[in-house]
């Protein structure tokens, strides 16, 4: 359904010296630097999958999504979506996909939601009966009923995101790209949106590609994750596998009575954070134990408090972002 082969995108970014002098200089002798946002990324996504696409800010997630949707042309490599080149066949591709950019609206700012949805329905050629059915369905699942007469500019962030989802799905696309759909939302709205995404995937078989920083979204929705770091795909596999692979690590944090000077790190543990009177260590529980690590620290310095953190997805991802995959490869 979606196939990327050695997908690469290089941006040419203006390189200006600081200050007015730099601005004037750039006017006469503009300089550019090249930045590889995505490098040789390859993956295939099957119909009906929900795939989480994660990485730190600037890792290349949004650039990949923009190439998959056809609005950006790859510098190298190939991408096929439903058998098409999404850029060359942009209009045909656009009919089969839906995209939510969490930080950008596709709705008309000054129009009431009902009018915006009507426009989207007509643009995507949704016939009237189907449109009415979907509106009443979304009114229920996304609790849109009270929002329909309200202009988008008067909506809260959470209401806007629910409206965006309805606009994205009103033509029942086969693939949906969700680029940080829960950014800035409160827990209740997040849960409602996750439930909605799960429902359209299960009931309509919609393929979902989800980029997010919210690991709750990933845990709740995705069985498979792609992890991108510095433009390079560093992991493509099941969520369960990485949880097991990195789940052997635990974190222990000490608060000490004195400053941490010249402390020996216990065998089998690594320093995650060290500053003032706080020390966070990560240890492999197959090599050592929490009691051994804490005994070693307590023998060197007075400990006021300590906490032990069981592995969760945020820990796993933190380890991966810190190069964990390279270390364990």
């Amino acid at each position: 359904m979606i196939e990327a082969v050695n997908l690469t995108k290089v941006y040419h970014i203006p390189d200006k010296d600081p200050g007015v002098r730099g601005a004037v200089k750039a006017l006469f002798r503009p300089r550019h630097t090249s930045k590889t946002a995505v490098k040789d990324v390859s993956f295939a996504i099957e119909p009906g999958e929900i795939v989480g696409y994660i990485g730190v800010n600037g890792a290349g997630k949004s650039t990949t999504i923009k190439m998959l949707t056809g609005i950006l042309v790859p510098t190298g490599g190939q991408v096929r979506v439903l058998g098409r080149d999404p850029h060359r066949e942009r209009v045909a591709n656009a009919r089969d996909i839906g995209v939510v950019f969490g930080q950008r609206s596709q709705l008309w700012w000054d129009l009431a939601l009902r009018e915006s949805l009507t426009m989207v329905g007509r643009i995507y050629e949704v016939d009237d009966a189907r449109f009415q059915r979907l509106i009443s369905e979304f009114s229920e699942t996304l609790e849109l009923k009270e929002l329909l007469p309200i202009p988008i500019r008067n909506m809260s962030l959470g209401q806007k995101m629910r409206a965006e989802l309805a606009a994205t799905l009103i033509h029942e696309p086969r693939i949906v790209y969700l680029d940080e759909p829960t950014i800035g939302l409160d827990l209740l709205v997040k849960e409602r949106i996750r439930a909605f995404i799960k429902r359209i995937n299960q009931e309509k078989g919609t393929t979902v590609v989800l980029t997010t920083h919210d690991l709750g979204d990933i845990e709740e929705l995705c069985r498979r994750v792609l992890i991108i770091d510095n433009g390079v795909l560093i992991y493509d596999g099941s969520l369960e596998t990485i949880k097991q692979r990195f789940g052997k690590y635990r974190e222990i944090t000490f608060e000490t009575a004195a400053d941490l000077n010249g402390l020996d790190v216990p065998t089998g543990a690594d320093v995650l954070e060290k500053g003032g009177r706080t020390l966070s260590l990560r240890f492999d529980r197959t090599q050592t134990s929490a009691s051994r690590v804490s005994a070693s620290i307590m023998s060197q310095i007075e400990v006021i408090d300590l906490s032990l953190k069981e592995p969760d997805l945020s820990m796993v991802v933190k380890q991966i972002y810190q190069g964990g995959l390279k270390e364990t490869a």
Partner: protein
Amino acid sequence: MISTLKRDLRAYGAIVATVPKMFMAYSIWVWMSWFVQIIAVVILVAFWRAVFSNTATVGGLDLDTTINYLLLGMIFRAGQNTDVLYEIGEMMRDGRIGITLLRPLDMQATYYVINLANMGLNTLLSIPIALFAWLAYGLSLPNDPLVWLAFLVALLLGNAVMFCFDWIIGCVGFYSTEIWGLSVLRYGFGLFFSGALIPLDMMPDWLRTIASVLPFSQALYLPVSILAGINPVSAMPRIWLIQLGYLVVFLVASRLVFGRALRVVTVQGG
């Protein structure tokens, strides 16, 4: 083919329908626009009366014909100002270009129909200005439907020429992501060479030649001069042919430039 056409009409019709709704969202815009235009009419008439105070004709035109032409130019000026440059510049700067390109529509065709709707809406909103100009300064309009028909065809052709011309300049924004300077230049040139400030007949020969070669006069001077009686209806077939020539050249060029520009588009922001 017919079903595709019907489908496209429905989709582009939906886009057209947004134009008046967006415009009317803030009623103060409408009132302010009327107020500003009435002030502009008063200044324009006072200025040209001063110019003609010591002479009966300038460039072969008398005071009444000049004022009538310029008032009509104000009422129908929307044909010359397509707003496309401003729109593309904004979209490139704030990254909205990404959302626009995600719609299953040809972007250039979408903005052409928006431009047509804007032109129609602005012309409708000029009716109170026309009424004011008629009551205060005796604005005269032709009675012959043939003149109106000739005007309408010339206006639509001229507007299409200007739309394609602006589209080509707008595509520069795909490379530079900033076209504010170019748009200021374009609107400045447009104001002068379209005949909106002074009728082209008043320009010296060399300047008039430049103005007639540049596309700006296609959507203002040529159609409005028919309405004002400066150009006779019998001159229209020749004028339409020239406009068609411009349109073919600019349409082909705009499609080529746009096709290439899409390959370098950068969507700003995450």
